[in-house]
């Protein structure tokens, strides 16, 4: 009897000890993510310090990227990044909205799964494939059938004409924006579909019961209800577009000049890093780290806002 009790106590003790270690072990691994985040921010900042020290905040809007004379500013790359991501959003957001509406409202139920999966597959295609596709297939078509006519029709117009000037070789900010649009489209569409499905059926059914058309239900019931989630999805796409490297590097033209039109070649932060980091030395490396730091900070803020907005919609699920 007593020995039995002793056994029980020692088993319980052992298990408590094992449990303690298992708890701490899993906790350490999950904290690794936080450590990685702080590590990324710290290491980027430390390596970028020489550049920040020399140029100060001026680095952000200084329009110069002169490797030989070691004069570096981020303005050209920032403009290229924001312009290409902005164009991508203008194209991808309405398309993603359409896809999400189709998948949640009109699509026959038996097709839903297959079509949803194919959109998710579009998201799985590696970005370098988008880049190659952009360079070899899209750019020639874009040059002949879009750039040339656009330049003919709009190039001579006052005020907006300058946007369509320059060489029509298929590369440039606009081309990069379009390729990016199709790259981020599935991410935005997937979030929008998920948040649309969160809308309580009772709201939808009430609207239908009042005689609303499907389109009115989407515009006046589903969209207002899921507003925050939709904006979150858009910002998630924006975060992706800002940091995308390979799809952009192939088609943006990679020129360290301030772009003057939608057709002119430019560069983005990520593509500058991809092109130059391998051959960089000394101070150039610091300047590239500074670019990387800026990119990380910008995308972090955008993604954090996106996450907060999506979380809020999902929390409001049960009314």
């Amino acid at each position, binding site marked *: 009897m007593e020995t039995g009790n002793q056994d029980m106590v020692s088993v319980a003790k052992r298990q408590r000890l094992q449990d303690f270690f298992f708890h701490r072990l899993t906790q350490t691994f999950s904290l*690794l993510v936080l450590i990685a985040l702080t590590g990324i921010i710290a290491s980027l900042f430390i390596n970028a310090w020489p550049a920040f020290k020399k140029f100060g905040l001026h680095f952000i809007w200084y329009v110069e990227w002169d490797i030989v004379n070691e004069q570096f500013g981020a303005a050209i790359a920032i403009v290229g990044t924001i312009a290409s991501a902005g164009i991508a959003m203008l194209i991808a957001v309405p398309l993603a909205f359409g896809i999400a509406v189709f998948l949640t409202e009109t699509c026959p139920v038996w097709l839903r799964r297959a079509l949803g999966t*194919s959109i998710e597959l579009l998201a799985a295609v590696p*970005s370098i494939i988008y880049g190659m596709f952009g*360079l070899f297939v899209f750019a020639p078509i874009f040059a002949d059938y879009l750039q040339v006519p656009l330049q003919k029709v709009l190039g001579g117009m006052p005020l907006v004409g300058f946007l369509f000037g320059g060489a029509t070789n298929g590369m440039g900010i606009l081309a990069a924006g379009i390729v990016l649009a199709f790259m981020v489209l599935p991410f935005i*569409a997937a979030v929008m579909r998920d948040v649309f499905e969160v809308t309580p059926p009772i709201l939808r059914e009430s609207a239908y019961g009042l005689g609303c058309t499907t389109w009115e239900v989407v515009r006046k019931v589903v969209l207002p209800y899921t507003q925050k989630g939709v904006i979150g999805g858009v910002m998630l796409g924006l975060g992706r577009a800002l940091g995308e490297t390979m799809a952009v590097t192939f088609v943006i033209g990679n020129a360290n000049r301030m772009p003057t039109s939608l057709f002119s070649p430019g560069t983005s932060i990520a593509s500058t890093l*991809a092109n130059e980091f391998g051959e960089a030395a000394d101070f150039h490396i610091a300047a590239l780290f500074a670019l990387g730091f800026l990119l990380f900070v910008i*995308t972090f803020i955008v993604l954090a806002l996106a996450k907060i907005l999506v979380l809020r919609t999902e929390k409001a699920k049960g009314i």
Partner: protein
Amino acid sequence: MLTNFNQKLYNRRRRANAQGLILSMAAMGLGLAVLLWILFVLLSNGLAAVDWNMFTKDTPAPGSEGGGLRNAIVGSLMMVGLSVLVSTPVGILAGIYLTEYGDQSKTAELTRFVTDIMLSAPSIVLGLFVYAIAVATVGNFSGYAGSLALSLIAIPVVMRTTENMLRLVPSSLREAAFALGAPRWKVSTLVTLRAAKSGVITGLLLAVARISGETAPLLFTALNNQFYNTDMGKPMANLPVVIFQFAMSPYDNWIRLAWGGALLITMAVLVLNILARVFFREKISA
């Protein structure tokens, strides 16, 4: 009068409805068309490059004829394999912490939030980070650094899917095990994790699919290597970087190989994605 007005309004609403729905259908069509177009281009250009030589010969020097992708394929497999070995235990254990131990605590919430951001963080910046800690300090590019960069991308994927799958396990199962006197670590590993096994494997497959196509984080960690190399302490050839380099080159045989490699990667990624879905669905219905 009034019926006339009503009829007009009704017609307008129906037109708006038809317009909206047709446009949304067109958007869906465009998305599908792009996917099919990409697959078609890949197949038509890539199949021409796929032959026995692609798997048995190494990447050709500039200007030389022929060649294959053997070194790049082996390099990619090794790096992806190592990062799966690293990220599987880390991701799964961290996922267990988030559901079974941390749950609603502040640290768990913060970790979850940061993990979600890391899922979409620009991968090139992760490459910069690994360069700073594992290349600049050691003094040379290496396959290990490449694996580390890939693991940083894979861990959040494994972590979040594991967590989500563990959450689907009914709590009555946990309670039953606790009632039998099982300690928490046994419940989480032998009961909940086992119940969520298929979902966790789905997450692993998705993580592999995600990292096998990543180029940006490898550019300045694993770099590239023209020769066959299985020493992970040295720069290593890998498919994505070889594709990047070859596609931008002026040589015809390089561009052909780039298409071949692109086809190989895309097929691998798509098959992994489809496998993950089929696997998950079958287990759920079973």
